[in-house]
């Protein structure tokens, strides 16, 4: 069973077809990297998979479930998916701790109204914030963190959901080397726990180091997919992406 599968997926923005008949599979329990030149549709793919953009054609299958021609954002969590954003989207004027607790507490209006902070939630929040080195900053507003720290907070928020599949959209952008190591370590841990990771990234060294499976997109279409060493030595990929 694949964690994610798309069949002939299409997403258009006016006259621009950002994702154009894309059919891919993301194997369960692996790190799948999605690479491609700027504007190739990688982030649009993530947005479509998480309901932020509506699907214009084709279907998505999550964890072997039914074929979906429409995903609403609030359904994403129930499908066992979570994500980080290319442009950091933490809850700026909310504390670091509350940013993470959001991922842990009840989602229904009535359920959340009568729910206070539970010990188990605080414990989990401490665990993920400690993992990304932000526990000391738990009472600060997210807006007071540096860019890199806010990226880490997004990762902590995603980890706290316990989702089976995590989509990381350029998680390394703007991180200094120690933070890069930290994020790579988290990804390996998630893989060891049997989680599926979809990684959108431009750094080829990191792609080689982490990926089990690579998908290359160009102009919204699938250019190649397979094992990293095969895909990254593919002539068409080198021409389209690496430009040599």
């Amino acid at each position, binding site marked *: 069973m694949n964690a994610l599968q798309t069949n002939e997926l299409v997403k258009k923005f006016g006259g621009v077809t950002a994702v154009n008949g894309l059919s891919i599979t993301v194997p369960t329990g692996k790190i799948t990297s999605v690479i491609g030149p700027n504007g190739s549709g990688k982030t649009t793919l993530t947005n479509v998979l998480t309901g932020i953009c509506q699907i214009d054609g084709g279907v998505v299958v999550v964890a072997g479930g039914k074929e979906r021609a429409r995903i609403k*954002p*609030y359904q*994403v969590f129930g499908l066992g998916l979570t994500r980080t954003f290319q442009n950091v989207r933490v809850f700026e004027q909310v504390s670091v701790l*509350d940013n993470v*607790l959001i991922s842990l507490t009840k989602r229904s*209006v009535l359920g*959340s*109204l009568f729910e206070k*902070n539970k010990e188990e939630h605080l414990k989990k929040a401490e665990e993920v914030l400690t993992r990304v080195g932000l526990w000391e900053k738990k009472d600060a507003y997210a807006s007071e963190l540096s860019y890199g720290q806010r990226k880490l907070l997004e990762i902590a928020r995603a980890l706290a959901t316990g989702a089976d599949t995590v989509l990381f959209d350029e998680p390394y952008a703007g991180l200094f080397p120690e933070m890069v190591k930290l994020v790579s370590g988290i990804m390996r841990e998630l893989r060891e726990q049997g989680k599926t990771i979809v990684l959108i990234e431009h750094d080829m060294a990191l792609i080689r180091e982490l990926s089990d499976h690579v998908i290359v997109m160009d102009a919204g279409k699938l250019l190649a997919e397979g094992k990293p060493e095969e895909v990254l030595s593919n002539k068409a990929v080198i021409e389209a992406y690496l430009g040599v």
Partner: protein
Amino acid sequence: MEYLVHLAVVFAIYAILAVSLQLIVGFTGLISLAHAAFYGVGAYSVALILENTGFGFFPALVLGILMSAIAAFLIGIVLSKFRDDYYALGSLGFTVIVFSIFLNWQELTRGPLGIPGINRPELFGFVFSENIVYLGLALVLLGLCYVFSTFVTKSSFGRALQAIREDEVALSVFGYHTSWFKLAVFVMGAGMAAIAGGLFASYITFIDPSSFGVPESVFMLSVIILGGLGSLRGAVIGALVLVLLPEALRFVGFTPDIAAQMRQVIYGLMLVFLMLYRPQGLAGTYRL
């Protein structure tokens, strides 16, 4: 003394309005201009029920809350699809419609003539006729609204409201059906605004549409922005300052021919300087 008690009652009514609007604007980030409409629905419901039925003030108040909540639910279903400027415009439109109903449905509301002779509340034969006693009632209701709002904001629901304010789309990806949260807080706020409306109607004993128009909604927004968005305490402080400030300026000593205009000028300047040098308001932490 009677004058001070009167100011305190007016403050309590505006503090209820501010605390309830704070849930919608300061915590959830929805710029609602509909609050005066719900204030009016509460006031007219209480006035009409007292005038036309055998119900007393408190059952009438409960029905007024219910009417306001139903109105908020119906308009909220539409408004919850929007955010930012569109939300503000939609809520503005609702206030204009409700104001027009108050003004033009003369068989029911008596239009611009208003409804006079509204009874003061009565409980087990005790009439809240003295202003000092009425103040006690107003403060108790303010206290209940404050405690309820604190309960809401300290819950996981309150945390979700703040996340909606910050980034509704990002929150929805974490499994929150944000429209329901926006609708729920809107209905809660409208219910509390109706309490203020009922108190106002029964205190002044006369209502007409002029108290429930768009300028009143704008005034309520000024109260919570000045007091501090995202802070219940700030809402109460904002109400205190904006109710008392114009009264305090009466004693500055302007000559009678320019006193009213000068009060408006000073009042406006103070708001401008506050926003320049303390944009988070007197007691708030959140900035628009």
